[in-house]
């Protein structure tokens, strides 16, 4: 076994040291695999970014309460009485200003994108002051909070960056009202940053919603008390509600889009990967053809066919991993942090997010490259091992 390893290491060494003599085809294979990995990592970083904005939003000790049977806020309606009963239910954490709960509603506005000028659906959420107790990650970073009872709005950082006329001081006419941006807020890059917030009491008459809301978000005493809180609400005969943990809600609201982006990304990467594998096959056939006499000489001296197979596979895999590392680096440099927005058709609104190239994605890219290299090297490797020695020795 040790001798086999020793001879295999030698054949691999000979193989790799002769790569500079075959630089052209080797570079072509590296470039092909680099392109695939850039695409693979970039597309999947969209899903990661979307995931970070949606699935990481919310907190496990926060509950979102909607009308029974609603699977999204958009389909929900809660009467004012119901929202008060919910806020006063045992299990809702209490602060200096009373229960940490916010009855909310939202409407969808058409706001042009800065990049294309085309209209996009942007949520305008009416909140109660308790919203800031429920979502402690929200922080006004420019300007100030809106004054309750006025047509002032605060805008999430991502929405401000991506959509037109949402900068501090901008005035917009939406519906029959004029709204002034008085503050910009951040929320750790989560979905809230894609929204515009105003006073719920102002939004209700502006969009003729009477005294109804769509949801209540409530911060609980702890994450562990969620089930007891849920049981209390769902068994209260005065209410017809469904209660979800906020983290679960956002995860379910993003699942389809995430699956589609990941699916499309994987299919694109797979198709490109097939092309790159042909490139690798071609390169390694070329390598084997160039080294025909060298391989035959080693085999004549007694080196085993399996050593030759492994040397070809290792060369192919290493070229591919070089492509994978370069591709991952390029994808990180070109796309990581790139801000964009996409429609979440589960909520009919735009979600702003940043492409997120995670270390796990880079590892996945490198593994994908390695697989392409191994598949690409397999047939040339077998061919090298099966070459009749006496014929190959005559090759020039």
């Amino acid at each position: 076994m040790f001798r086999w390893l020793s001879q295999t290491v030698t054949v691999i060494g000979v193989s790799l040291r002769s790569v500079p003599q075959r630089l052209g085809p080797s570079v072509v294979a590296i470039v092909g695999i680099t392109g695939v990995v850039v695409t693979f990592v970039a597309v999947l970083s969209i899903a990661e970014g979307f995931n970070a904005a949606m699935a990481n939003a919310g907190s496990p000790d926060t509950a979102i309460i909607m009308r029974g049977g609603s699977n999204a806020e958009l389909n929900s309606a809660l009467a004012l009485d119901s929202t008060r009963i919910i806020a006063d239910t045992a299990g809702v954490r209490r602060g200096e200003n009373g229960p940490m709960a916010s009855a909310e509603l939202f409407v969808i506005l058409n706001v042009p994108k800065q990049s294309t000028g085309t209209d996009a659906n942007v949520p305008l959420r009416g909140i109660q002051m308790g919203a800031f107790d429920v979502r402690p990650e929200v922080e006004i970073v420019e300007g100030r909070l809106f004054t309750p009872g006025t047509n002032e709005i605060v805008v999430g950082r991502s929405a401000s960056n991506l959509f037109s006329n949402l900068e501090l001081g901008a005035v917009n006419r939406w519906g029959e009202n004029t709204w002034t941006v008085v503050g910009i807020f951040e929320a750790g890059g989560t979905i809230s940053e894609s929204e515009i917030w105003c006073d719920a009491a102002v939004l209700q008459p502006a969009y003729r919603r009477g005294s109804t809301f769509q949801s209540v978000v409530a911060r609980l005493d702890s994450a562990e008390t969620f089930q007891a809180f849920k049981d209390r609400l769902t068994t209260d005969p005065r209410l017809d509600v469904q209660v979800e943990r906020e983290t679960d809600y956002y995860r379910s609201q993003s699942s389809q889009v995430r699956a589609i982006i990941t699916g499309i990304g994987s299919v694109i990467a797979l198709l490109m990967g097939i092309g790159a594998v042909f490139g690798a096959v071609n390169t390694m056939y070329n390598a084997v053809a160039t080294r025909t006499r060298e391989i035959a000489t080693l085999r004549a001296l007694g080196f085993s066919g399996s050593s030759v197979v492994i040397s070809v596979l290792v060369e192919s895999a290493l070229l591919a991993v070089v492509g994978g590392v370069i591709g991952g680096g390029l994808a990180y440099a070109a796309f990581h942090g790139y801000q964009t927005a996409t429609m979440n058709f589960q909520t009919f609104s735009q979600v702003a997010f940043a492409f997120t190239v995670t270390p796990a994605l880079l590892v996945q890219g490198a593994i994908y490259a390695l697989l392409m290299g191994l598949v690409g090297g397999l047939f040339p490797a077998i061919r090298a091992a099966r070459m009749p020695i006496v014929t190959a020795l005559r090759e020039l």
Partner: protein
Amino acid sequence: MTENGAALVQVRNLHKVFKRGAERIDVLQGVDLDLQSGEFLSLMGPSGSGKTTLLNLLGGLDTPSDGTVTVGGDRIDKLSAARLSRWRARHIGFVFQLYNLLPVLTAERNVELPLLLTPLSRSQRKKHVATALAMVGLSGRSKHYPRQLSGGQEQRVGIARAIVTDPTLLLCDEPTGDLDRKSGDEILDLLQALNAEHGKTIIMVTHDARAAARSTRTLHLDKGTLATEGHDR
């Protein structure tokens, strides 16, 4: 002679048939050959007579269509490819017309290659390599790459690689075919010395009667059969 008195190499009724499409080419047609230990045999004959094919069969690079090949008491005509590989590493040293050195390795690393298939330690390998290079007169060129050597020097490295494991049999395929006369003579001097002074058993394929004259025995092949026995020196 081997220990039990049999010839070192015994070939009996050896046939090799190649097929090219529907065409059948009988390259060797019933060759019988005995070679004693310590002989230096030249195989001569026109192109296509089967001499290189015979050399390849004796070296276990190919398998016969029929007949038997016994070297040092081992029947090699029925061995699997993997066993033949191991057998070649132990018993055969090859010298090629075009030297077949690996261009990315230095002379000493080229010579060391066959030793990597043995259980020798690194320091033992180093000693063997130094001895082999000294025997071919290239101690001072051990760190040179093949491109830094003349053709004659490259062939000397090839011979050092062939003898470094002290093989049972040295097989040389046109070892002077790609060299000028002076370098060719030097290589033949070396092979002759290996045979005469170190007792190496050598089989050499050559077109050159002058080269064949250096051997102890010459056999002529014609159309796949041993035609005539040449001189015995």
